[in-house]
């Protein structure tokens, strides 16, 4: 196995046996046909002038641990052009943090692994194991350390973060991660790295990830965003999550964000801001399907289909009368298995008043009711029994275990 650390500081010797300098870095270039980047050349520090010079990979005769020999004399070698988004392996990747996409965790690069195939040297991946550390410290030859297991991450299973992020695109794999996992990764990265990573994601992903972040990280994540970018992301965040976030920031910033919301959303947000966190009003959601008692099952299903793209989750539809008084619920299961011509009022499960709460109900009370009556969601009513919002069981859990 070939590792980058074997070659750093190794002398570059030309065909006349003259030492040009010591190896400082390897330059890798990505290509669209290849899964792995390949080495296009080596950078070394000139022995006399102390400047950085480079030699192309083709001019190398042999890569050895004690010296790197060149095919011709140093004078005859043309330096190659290093492009903007070429990777300097030692400078950009070695010792830096990366995201392991398989394990969805943040690790540090201890060494970089190469593989030789059809005369090209490819970057296969990185070594994140303790064994890699031992090797870097020059103790690799000692036998006892062979007990340590190697641990590699392949090039396409990792995401570079930090300054080098500008050089690579955010991989497809990263975006496919579950928002909660992505949020965990962002929380582990140091804040400047996570900020850069977030900026490279599309607004919808950012909105999803935002909702999964721990409270203290929500504020942090927008450090680098412009006001406009924040607005775009916020437009994809449901009202209750938005309100939770707005409660944690200072008045000035809060008002700025509220000003840029759509009128409807703005009104809801302002209403919600009044409810304390530890009450039903503070954790309820306004994203639910509300239907009149007279409509048919077919019509209800159509509405559900229309809204299923916008709402985070739909498990029940909530039935109200003309005056918006809450009457009962219909689960999706019931909806699907009922006759399309039936009125929802006929198939609904009537919810009695004591199985609902007012916005000022405590979390304790909400949890008690949901447990006692086996409810996945609880209706929150105004004093006049009009339907205000719905507490979902996952929002309740989030309130009870905020740091999970």
């Amino acid at each position, binding site marked *: 196995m070939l590792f980058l650390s074997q070659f750093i500081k190794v002398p570059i010797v030309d065909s006349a046996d003259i030492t040009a300098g010591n190896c400082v870095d390897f330059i890798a270039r990505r290509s669209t046909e290849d899964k792995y980047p390949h080495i296009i050349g080596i950078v070394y520090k000139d022995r006399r002038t102390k400047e950085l010079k480079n030699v192309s990979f083709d001019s190398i005769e042999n890569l050895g641990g004690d010296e790197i020999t060149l095919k011709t004399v140093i004078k005859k070698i043309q330096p190659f052009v290093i492009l903007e988004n070429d990777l300097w392996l030692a400078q950009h990747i070695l010792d830096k943090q990366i995201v392991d996409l398989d394990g969805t965790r943040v690790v*540090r690069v201890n060494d970089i692994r190469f593989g030789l195939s059809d005369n090209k040297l490819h970057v296969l991946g990185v070594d994140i194991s303790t064994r890699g*550390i031992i090797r870097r410290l020059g103790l690799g030859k000692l036998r006892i350390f062979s007990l340590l297991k190697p641990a590699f991450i392949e090039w396409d299973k990792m995401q570079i973060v930090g300054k080098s992020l500008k050089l690579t695109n955010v991989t497809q794999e990263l975006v496919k991660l579950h928002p909660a996992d992505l949020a965990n990764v962002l929380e582990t990265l*140091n*804040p400047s790295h996570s900020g850069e990573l977030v900026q490279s994601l599309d607004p919808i992903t950012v909105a999803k990830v935002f909702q999964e972040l721990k409270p203290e990280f929500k504020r942090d994540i927008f450090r680098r965003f412009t006001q406009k970018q924040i607005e775009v992301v916020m437009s994809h965040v449901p009202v209750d999550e938005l309100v939770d976030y707005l409660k944690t920031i200072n008045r000035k910033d809060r008002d700025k964000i509220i000003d840029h919301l759509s009128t409807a959303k703005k009104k809801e947000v302002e209403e919600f801001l009044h409810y304390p966190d530890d009450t039903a009003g503070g954790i309820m959601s306004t994203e639910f399907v509300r239907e009149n008692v007279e409509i048919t099952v077919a019509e209800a299903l159509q509405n559900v289909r229309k809204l299923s793209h916008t709402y985070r989750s739909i498990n029940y539809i909530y039935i109200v009368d003309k005056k918006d008084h809450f009457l009962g619920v219909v689960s999706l299961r019931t909806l699907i298995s009922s006759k399309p011509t039936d009125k929802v009022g006929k198939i609904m499960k009537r919810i009695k008043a004591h199985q609902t709460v007012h916005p000022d109900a405590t979390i304790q009370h909400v949890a008690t009711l949901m447990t006692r009556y086996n409810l996945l969601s609880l209706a929150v009513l105004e004093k006049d029994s009009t339907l205000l919002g719905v507490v979902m069981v996952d929002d309740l859990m989030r309130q009870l275990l905020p740091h999970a």
Partner: protein
Amino acid sequence: MTLKEKTRGYKHKILFFLSVIGPGIIAANADNDAGGISTYSIVGAHYGLKMLWVLLLITVSLAITQEMGVRIGLVTRQGLGGVIRENFGLKWVALAMLTMLIANMGTITAEFSGVAAAFGIFGVSKYLVVPLAAFVVWMILFKGSFKTSQRIFLIFSAFYIVYIINGFIIKPDFAEATRALFTPHIEWTTGFLVTMIALIGTTITPWGQFFIQSYVVDKGLAIKHYKAEKTEVFLGAFITDIVSFFIIISTATVLYKHGIRITDAGDAALALKPLAGEFAQFLFAFGLFSASMLGAFILPVATAYAICEAFGWEYGFNTTWKTGKIFYTIILVSIALPAILVLIPKVNLIKIMIVSQDINGILLPIILIFVMKIINNKDVMGEHVNKPIGNIIAWLTIIGIIAATLILVVTSMMGLN
């Protein structure tokens, strides 16, 4: 703005300041650990007011070095271990970690010595107390809530206010003390130099440098909190050294004046007699115990955090034994090894405490040099690189310590005492 809005704004500012406060004050209080108390007591008891000028200088140095740690932490948002790793590579961070590990082990040994000495005042055997204390620390760190225990001991260590009160009761000559603050005095003897280096090493510690940086990062602070943080570390440095000042003048007045030298903790407790009379022993033992325990909790954790961050191992209290094996192993070893050292028969507990702070002092320049290189690096710090005055003070401190160490080595080799 209505009156309501005005007062709310004011309250908001205070809350903001208080929410950010914490790191500097905790690190400051933890400075007065077992090693600290014994060193300050000996400084006063053996040399009277003659080393006060050193205290003044290192208070300035402490404020400056802590502020640098805060600044690096706020800008890079990484701990010192991570920053060294990313900018200097694996070999150098290994050196830094080794240095920190040795210094920290020494300090933890001092903490357990403190526990043993505190109970030793009442004749309780160290073979009983130290294993018990080590076990308690390990159990709480491994299983329980680190935060609550930290809070408990922080409250206990507020005990040091007693030294300040004592300092006034014994009616020392404040004029003389103030003059001594500005009067350099040096003796070229091993004893003086050892104590002097210990004085420096117990105030500005390698672990303190890592701690303050990790803490501001953990708390999620950003560069906009800089002013508040800077005020806080300056305040912290001032507070901790005020307490040190009073410990020194207490022992100077009560012990030095009567030629009493300190060989064990009981002697140091005598310095509190003017305040507490016979109760002095108990008060001192209680304070020494709680200060030692605070250190015994913080140090192993700080050590494990720094090492894991530098080498990329999983760390933090939300890991389990399965995922955070290395993290918890480091904590375990950092508790067990020092505890065993303290249990060696016939060791002089006070001597351990002083020597450990000497180790801190001698190894400190290595860590400070890393800090200096980072804080003057434009690529890392951007516009927040050091100003010349910061560099001057820091380098003077570093050179001062190295010089003192070299002189110590030379004089002890030449057999001068």
